[in-house]
């Protein structure tokens, strides 16, 4: 009885179920029946039951009770039971299950079975789900099969070997000689498997790579055979002879020819031949051409060949088939770093692809356009990008805005252009910008002193049209607060003058304060701006007082606190008001208070004490009490709000210390303490200190400081560092290489570490220096880092 009939019956019944509940009921009954049958002794229906169970598994129902049955079926002598058993093993078992170890012995026996189909079943299963232990046990068997069997088994054994090498890289050496000999096979399937195996071996082990460089001529021969062979009905796909094999060989040639002149020379002719002779009207030909192009760009090829390759890519770009266009843009992305000018030539077509309907093509075009931005084409390209932003799909928006900001920052031709661009982005897609945009923009505006008038006019106009985009509103409020006098003066060279009355300005700010679209952070901005205007306008100070006093009883604790403080400023400290609310100084970009607060939980108070650590730029230093108040106000006047522009719901409750601790500046705040430094090396008068500073969740900055307490200068000091494999290391340039004597100076070097896998961090530092004429070299192992390390 063939198993499918019973299976078909069950499938029919399941399909007949009208509702999900009915289907579940049917399947539960079937599973119960299957379980009962599994428990019974051997009967002829085991394979059918497992087949049914696998179908049920595909639909998503639990099927783990079939695992032992798989093991039993695999051990059975009958072929159809073995077949279903192995299929079940591939679908239900994996290395984490204990049952998988039980099939190792069965696989071993089956690998030496007389029938090649049983052998192939075993190979297939081992190749799909073999665990590291299974692979180690069975590797010699696979090696035997690689050498001495028919081509059907050889090709399966080759791919099984690839899986083994992936699981247990040390076994790579075992398979190297067999792989080498497989290259002389005629059967394309075996050749294909051999090329994949060699590729895997070369990628894992550079020594093997060296060894296999010698086979480049052989591979070139095989390729030539394929390309020139003419029509072979067996392997023909759309006129190309076995394109799959051609692509694989080209990829292997790429790996072998990378950074190696001799190998690359041997390939040059072949690549030129393939590039010119392949017919690219069908997908198969395009696949081969594409792979050729990638290979040409990656090895040390002649310049003529590179030009040919880039031209092929350009031709692909103009192809009507979207797939081809997508592929060509992917490959252009890979080479844009190295052959920037060549890709620039195709900028027009790439920019046109931004307007394509296909979302995948758009994404590729966007990434490529951002990579192509340079000082020369920034204006025209930015225009296109802004146009794209207004119509781009929502999932690409955040990426586009951050790309635009980066490009604008690097290549802005003028400050006015820069500000205009950012404002444009905020008006079109303000909801998708990063949080740090607001402080960055504010910092930019303060530096562009001659544009204050222009900027505030523009922002005012943007504000009165639309107050829904939080980031834009925040910036606008801040500017109006700062430069309100310029706004009211009404004259401005850069833009047409418009008469703005004080009432209008206050109306606008009040609208922001009262609108339910404004987030609490935005309201804070608006309130502070209103307060600042009290020194910049003449007539409506009373109105401002009334606004401020209303908010003294606001439910939002942050606003209430601010309002109360401002009220106090009106009443008791009126003489200080003008000084406190003076124009802000230019913000330095690298100040610690300038970072965005996304790491913080959501309390809004943390920005105030950071003003403490910021450079002491506040012009006045009055008496103590007012000093504290001043700092608090300075903090709240500094609009470095962390709340993301996207949040429309008000932020969670502010930390409870906010209300009470007017004068407790450090309440509820983690001011980073000065990082401790540890002496890691001290010898011959040279001292090496280590200081860590945790920047992000996985990144850390380590500062190494070397000092010298001997009588003579230490010259040509160099530091080298090594870290565990998964940690990324970047050493910045040292401050110098001479340490003056008697501790008069020091050399510092910063090392940036990125530890995405959070492994325990160790670092080995080698110090080389010349002291009193002799060269010294020492290695230091650092096993524990001072906090804030991991």
């Amino acid at each position, binding site marked *: *009885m063939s198993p499918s009939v019973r299976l078909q019956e069950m499938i029919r019944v399941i399909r007949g179920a009208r509702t999900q509940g009915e289907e579940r009921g049917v399947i539960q009954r079937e599973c119960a029946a299957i379980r009962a049958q599994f428990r019974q002794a051997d009967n002829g229906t085991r394979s059918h039951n497992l087949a049914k169970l696998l179908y049920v598994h595909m639909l998503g129902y639990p099927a783990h009770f079939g695992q032992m049955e798989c093991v039993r079926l695999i051990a059975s002598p009958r072929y159809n039971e073995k077949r279903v058993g192995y*299929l079940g093993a591939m679908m239900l078992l*994996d290395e984490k299950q204990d049952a998988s170890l039980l099939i190792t012995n069965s696989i071993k026996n089956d690998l030496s079975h007389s029938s090649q*189909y049983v052998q192939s079943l075993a190979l297939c299963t081992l190749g799909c789900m073999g665990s590291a232990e299974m692979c180690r046990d069975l590797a010699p068997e696979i090696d035997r099969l690689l050498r001495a069997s028919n081509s059907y088994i050889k090709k399966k054994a080759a791919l099984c070997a690839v899986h083994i090498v992936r699981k247990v890289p040390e076994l790579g050496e075992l398979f190297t000689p067999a792989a080498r000999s497989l290259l002389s096979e005629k059967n394309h*399937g075996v050749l294909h498997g051999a090329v994949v195996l060699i590729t895997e071996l070369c990628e894992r082990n550079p020594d093997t790579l060296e060894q296999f460089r010698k086979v480049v001529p052989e591979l070139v021969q095989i390729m030539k055979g394929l390309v020139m062979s003419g029509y072979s009905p067996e392997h023909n796909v759309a006129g190309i002879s076995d394109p799959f094999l051609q692509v694989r060989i080209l990829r292997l040639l790429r790996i072998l020819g990378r950074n190696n002149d001799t190998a690359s020379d041997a390939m040059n002719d072949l690549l030129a031949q393939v590039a010119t002779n392949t017919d690219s009207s069908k997908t198969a030909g395009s696949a081969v051409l594409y792979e050729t192009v990638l290979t040409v760009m990656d090895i040390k090829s002649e310049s003529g060949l590179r030009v040919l390759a880039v031209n092929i890519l350009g031709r692909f770009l103009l192809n009507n088939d979207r797939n081809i266009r997508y592929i060509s843009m992917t490959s252009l992305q890979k080479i844009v770093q190295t052959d920037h000018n060549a890709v620039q030539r195709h900028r027009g077509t790439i920019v046109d692809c931004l307007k394509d309907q296909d979302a995948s093509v758009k994404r590729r075009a966007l990434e490529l356009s951002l990579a192509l931005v340079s000082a020369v084409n920034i204006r025209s390209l930015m225009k296109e990008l802004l146009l794209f932003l207004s119509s781009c799909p929502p999932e690409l928006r955040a990426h586009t805005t951050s790309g635009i900001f980066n490009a604008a920052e690097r290549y802005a031709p003028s400050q006015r252009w820069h500000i205009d661009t950012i404002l444009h982005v905020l008006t079109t897609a303000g909801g998708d910008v990063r949080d740090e945009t607001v402080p960055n923009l504010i910092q930019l505006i303060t530096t562009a002193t001659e544009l204050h008038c222009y900027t505030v006019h523009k922002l005012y106009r943007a504000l009165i049209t639309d107050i829904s985009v939080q980031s834009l509103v925040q910036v606008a409020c801040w500017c109006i607060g700062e430069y309100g006098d310029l706004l009211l003066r009404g004259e401005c060279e850069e833009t047409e003058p418009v008469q703005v009355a004080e009432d209008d300005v206050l109306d606008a700010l009040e609208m922001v304060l009262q609108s339910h679209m404004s987030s609490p952070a935005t309201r804070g901005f608006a309130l502070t701006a209103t307060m600042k205007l009290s020194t910049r306008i003449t007539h409506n100070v009373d109105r401002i007082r009334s606004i401020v006093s209303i908010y003294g009883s606001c439910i939002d604790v942050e606003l209430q606190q601010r309002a109360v403080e401002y009220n106090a400023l009106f009443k008791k400290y009126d003489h200080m008001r003008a000084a406190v609310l003076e124009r802000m100084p230019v913000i330095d970009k690298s100040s610690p208070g300038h970072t965005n607060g996304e790491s913080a939980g959501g309390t809004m108070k943390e920005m105030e004490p950071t003003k403490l650590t910021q450079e002491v730029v506040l012009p006045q230093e009055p008496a103590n009490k007012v000093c504290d108040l001043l700092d608090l106000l300075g903090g709240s006047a500094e609009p470095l709000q962390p709340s993301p522009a996207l949040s429309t719901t008000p932020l969670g409750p502010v930390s409870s210390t906010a209300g009470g601790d007017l004068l407790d500046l450090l309440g509820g705040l983690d001011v980073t303490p000065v990082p401790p430094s540890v002496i890691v090396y001290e010898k011959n008068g040279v001292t090496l200190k280590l200081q860590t500073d945790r920047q992000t969740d996985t990144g850390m900055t380590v500062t190494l400081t070397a000092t010298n307490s001997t009588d003579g200068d230490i010259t040509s000091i160099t530091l080298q560092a090594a870290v565990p494999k998964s940690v990324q290391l970047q050493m910045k340039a040292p401050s110098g290489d001479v340490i003056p004597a008697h501790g008069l100076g020091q050399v510092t070097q910063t090392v940036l570490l990125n530890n995405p896998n959070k492994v325990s961090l160790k670092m080995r530092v080698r110090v080389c220096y010349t002291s009193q004429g002799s060269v010294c070299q020492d290695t230091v192992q650092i096993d524990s880092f001072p906090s804030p390390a991991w």
Partner: protein
Amino acid sequence: MIKAILIFNNHGKPRLSKFYEHYNEDTEQQIIRETFHLVSKRDENVCNFLEGGMLIGGSENKLIYRHYATLYFVFCVDSSESELGILDLIQVFVETLDKCFENVCELDLIFHVDKVHNILAEMVMGGMVLETNMNEIITQVDAQNKMEKSEAGIAGAPARAVSAVKNMNLPEMPRNINIGDISIKVPNLPSFK
């Protein structure tokens, strides 16, 4: 490396799911749903490549799909595979199915899932492409099927008779409906599989 091969219909019901990397059962179902979601949104004349969903590896993995009548064939691959090559591979796979099942349609895939798995096992092994020559694949699959049948032997005869009778009594189950083509073939009674 090919991470997964999925076949589902226009409504998202899985017809075949083969994963070459281990995920637990819930994740597998979620991946199928997510992939269906991403692929069904696509227009007819856009390119056949998509970034992978978050569950199956995000932007490193690509989904390469082809839509035939009522079925989506989706291959999830990582960056080491040639995208155009996989597209051709899907074509070879479907042509092989066509040869093995004679004008394959969705019902064939539904009722003969195990056979489809066996054919696929001859083409892709452990996430890597094994054989792309259609004739070779079909020869091997036929030989294996013959082996299975020969094992059934005499004991299978009464069961075969029973199944023949059963199939005779089901005139309402159409054997070969080509969706989109209204020709309905009447089952050929002697040829039971």
